[in-house]
């Protein structure tokens, strides 16, 4: 495909997605209920958010080669700071968003400055440890702010009405779609900018970058903060979609799921990461539905139990991909459709 055809296909695809809430028909098997109904729109919106989140993770992991195990922390920052400001302190949404933006710039700046003193696996371990600290903090419910294990329902009188209620799911759907498009454009711009080239050079050979007179530390910190900030933006949209904060997003398991998404889609390609995030979230949701169908429930225990566990199926799929399809879904597709 020539670049021009590709852009046309993309724009048409986006228009179709944007018009989806107006569709009345349904696609049986793929989605339950009408395509424009709130259930399907909510699922698709979640897929977009996870596609965008996988994209932000791919920025550090795929483009700079930083194996961070703490990305969930920054997503959770977006979720929890906004939720606390709106629900507990009754701030208006713009004020809460401003606070979230400040926190999600300062936090990764400080933690990134510490973590990036390590490299490779030790770096991965320190990020994991900091994320774990964040997870413990949320679970302990300090000053009754986070709601502990119960989570925190997004409430309060200050939320604009067009964001609340099942009838307004289509607004949230459009917000999620816009998030994905904007983040993709930012990420695309970033990796094709001069600093983006340096990131990829660091991934290939960090010492050589240093010898050439550039400071890899600053470039890595820049990528780390950018990626964390964008992840927080995903967290805010996720919060609006779910209508509440859930401590699950702070756990190390959540970061591992992100890793699975990026590897599933293809490390180091933007659209591959998006694809991975979308497919993962879709499978995770649909496999739960599948396990509750009568056909699966009727199977003998030896077959029923593995099929009822989405994480088991995703884990096995992940192992198979790592072993046999190193480029992920994106790499496999690219071999089929040479550019």
């Amino acid at each position, binding site marked *: 495909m020539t670049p021009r055809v590709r852009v046309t296909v993309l724009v048409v695809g986006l228009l179709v997605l944007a018009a989806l809430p107006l569709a009345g028909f349904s696609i049986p098997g793929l989605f339950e209920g009408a395509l424009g109904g709130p259930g399907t729109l909510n699922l698709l919106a979640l897929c977009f958010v996870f596609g965008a989140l996988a994209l932000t993770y791919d920025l550090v992991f795929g483009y700079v080669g930083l194996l961070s195990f703490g990305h969930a922390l920054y997503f959770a920052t977006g979720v929890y700071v906004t939720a606390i400001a709106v629900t507990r302190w009754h701030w208006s949404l713009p004020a809460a968003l401003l606070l979230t933006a400040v926190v999600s710039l300062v936090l990764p700046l400080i933690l990134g400055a510490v973590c990036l003193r390590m490299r490779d*696996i030790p770096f991965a*371990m320190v990020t994991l*440890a900091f994320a774990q600290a964040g997870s413990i903090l949320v679970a302990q419910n300090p000053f009754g702010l986070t709601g502990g294990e119960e989570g925190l329902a997004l409430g309060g009188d200050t939320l604009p009405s067009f964001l609340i209620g099942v009838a307004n799911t289509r607004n949230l759907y459009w917000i999620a779609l816009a998030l994905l498009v904007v983040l993709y454009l930012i990420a695309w711009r970033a990796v094709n900018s001069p600093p983006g080239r340096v990131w990829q050079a660091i991934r290939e050979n960090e010492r050589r970058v240093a010898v050439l007179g550039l400071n890899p530390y600053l470039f890595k910190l820049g990528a780390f903060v950018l990626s964390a900030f964008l992840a927080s933006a995903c967290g805010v949209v996720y919060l609006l979609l779910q209508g509440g904060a859930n401590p699950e997003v702070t756990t190390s398991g959540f970061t591992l799921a992100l*890793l699975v998404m990026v590897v599933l889609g293809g490390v180091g390609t933007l659209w591959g990461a998006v694809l991975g995030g979308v497919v993962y979230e879709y499978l995770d949701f649909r496999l739960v539905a599948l396990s509750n169908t009568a056909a699966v429930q009727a199977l003998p225990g030896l077959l029923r139990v*593995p099929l009822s*566990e989405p994480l088991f199926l*995703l884990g096995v799929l*992940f192992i198979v991909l790592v072993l046999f399809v190193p480029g992920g879904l994106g790499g496999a597709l690219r071999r089929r459709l040479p550019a």
Partner: protein
Amino acid sequence: VTTIALLLITGLGLGALYFLIAAGLSLIWGLMRVLNFAHGAFFTVAAYAGWSASGLVGGSSPEVQWLVAVAVAIVVGGAFAALTEVVLIRPLYARHVGQVLVTVGLALATISLVQGGFGSDPKRLGLPAWMTGTTTIVGANIPNTRLLVIAFALAVFALLIFFLRRTRFGLIVRAGVENRAMVQALGIDVQRAFTLVFAIGGMAAGLAGILAGTYYGTIDPGRGTSMLIFAFIVVIIGGLGSVTGSAVAAIVVGVLQQFLNFYGAAGVGDFSVVLLLAIVLLVRPGGFSGAST
């Protein structure tokens, strides 16, 4: 004094569990540069295998049931780990990130399978009567399970040190940790050593799984993962690849965690362990033992 003694020994018990997990992780990392996320899966699967086995011999005395559980957990942990190395790690020797990713996938898949098969509710592990009792040490009533766990960890530590210092395979492992390329160049089959350290690590993790069940009285699918994170911290603080370093770090982390969780608010201890890791890494990136990574 009684409180301090109780906290100290409980902390040592916790540290003993961390050590059993961390020792294998540390050896595997030192020899193969694999960050093994599946270690928590070895722990969990072995614990459930032991629990099931003790159910199968339900008619016999509690002591026999418990011993059967321990033996089965060790064997299953070792076998599962060796199998993992041969089937999943071996094809990826040239790809380090791929190895980490495969262990991540295995951990996710196995733990959710256990959860699906046995349910997420904790299972009670039957214990002999004397284990549920307490022993009085300097006025404090110490649960016997704590002492038992510590004794087991000491025995494993002694066995590991003996294996590493006094046997031919131990020599190969130690040399491999120092310089793997040189060992290979000398014509020694390092692959066998790889499978062996995985099996040893899996056996220790399996023992930790069933002992954690003894320590807490129950087993559940999530404990392996949460203990694995602290074991990672222990491995890093102790210095990657060093068994003795892991032992020292496990004691420090376990005791610190117990004391601060008791005297501070709940969770403060867990929090300060992470802080300790950050400080150690900033001051000595190689950990206590100072092995360069």
